[in-house]
């Protein structure tokens, strides 16, 4: 009878005992080579910006504040933990840690900001504002993202000229 076979099935399941992991009570470490949150080591970083160029989600922003200071900001929001930044970094300053417990109630908690000192040219050491936008770009180092609004800038001309950088989609939600 099928009812009897189902009851036998219940008894077989009871033999397995309880398989639930007591997770939040006991820690459960990730396996090695697990790609968790990337940790940026500022003592090793030379500010090349390779990680920023290589990030598929464009989550690492670079801003050259002036000639000597470059700010690298990792916003953790869109990071897909792919590990490309760690692969590309020439100084091995980025490590994909084993941390997966990243839940938070404000998304700014995952960001890491590095302020790096880049030395000036030893021969000319230029520090005055250049005339044409191209010369400005050459001086500023070709990378400036909008740190205040946490945005990756597609058109650098608009940074110089205060134009909107991304076409926002207008949506009617009612």
């Amino acid at each position, binding site marked *: 009878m099928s009812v009897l076979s*189902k009851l036998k099935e*219940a008894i077989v*399941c009871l033999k*397995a005992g*309880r*398989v*639930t992991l007591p997770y939040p009570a006991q820690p459960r470490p990730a396996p090695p080579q697990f790609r968790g949150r990337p940790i940026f080591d500022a003592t090793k970083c030379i500010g090349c910006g390779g990680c920023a160029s290589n990030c598929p989600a464009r989550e690492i922003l670079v801003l050259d504040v002036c000639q000597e200071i470059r700010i690298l900001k990792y916003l953790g929001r869109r990071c897909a933990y792919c590990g490309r930044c760690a692969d590309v970094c020439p100084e091995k300053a980025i490590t994909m840690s084993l941390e997966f417990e990243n839940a938070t109630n404000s998304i700014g908690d995952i960001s890491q900001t590095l302020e790096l000192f880049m030395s000036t040219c030893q021969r000319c050491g230029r520090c005055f504002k250049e005339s044409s936008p191209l010369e400005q770009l050459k001086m500023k180092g070709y990378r400036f993202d909008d740190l205040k609004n946490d945005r990756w800038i597609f058109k650098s001309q608009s940074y110089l000229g205060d134009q909107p950088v991304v076409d926002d989609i207008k949506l009617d939600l009612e």
Partner: protein
Amino acid sequence: MEKMLIRTIMAVVANVCMVLLVAPLCQGMLRKVTAIIQSRQGPPILQPYYDLLKLLGKEDLESGDSPVMQRFAAYLSLATVLTVACLVPMGFPAPMNGQGDVILLIYLLTLSGICTLLAGLSAGSTYSLVGISRQMMIMIALEPLFAVAIIIGAIHTRSFRLDTVLNGSVYANEGFPWSGLIMLAVMLLSFQAFVERVPFDIGEAETEIMEGPLMEYSGPKLALFKYASMVKLIIYSALFVAMFAPWGSGLMFPLGWLLFWAKVFVLVLLVTLVAATHARYRIDQAIRFFASLMLVALSALVLAGYGF
């Protein structure tokens, strides 16, 4: 006379409170045993109490086609099952025994099934309408089984009074109780459908497949419906125990009462075991099953008519 009235009222209140307090515990036990069968640590046993309290604390949204009917259906569902709880003996004679007969019992049970239909109709969405059409089909196939069991009891004891019929009356004929045993088998096989648990919970609690008639309910009204389904488990078990397994109900107060609740817990455990190991039936498979059970029940009725 007034003393009788006060005693009746106190007995009614005590019975209703006891049923209300024990119903979520039975549901909690059901969930915990299901979890143990599925090899996991389930929710704590008092979980349905937390669920009901949380639902009572939520906002009361008005939604669906006709909110007045929604509210009415929610109140009616809990009211009918609590009225049945006053009529059923639970280890000691029922408080409102003399005031109703068997026809009232069948009517109240059918009315509690109709509340689900009202709920689905007042929501008005397509999923609810499909849910209530399936529930209607099941009710048409299912309520006659219970009615046949009660009528067999009434035929054997030649009265419609509740305290005689609900006292193991199906076995109460002179010779070997053929019709009683046939009805016992039929009721055991269809018990899952009365309490709306897994192989047959097609109409109402079908939240995994579609949202069912309860789709537009939220907050306190949903708490009333969930409470009503928990209490239904208890009262159907109590009716089953009273009609088919009444031995030992005549004992003294603590012992008879504890024996009754032990029988009810055994029945709930049986429901759990069947619910945890079965999949849900399709509506046409279920109707075919009930139709065959109906044939068997009618043959038992004919046998009872001839005195077997």
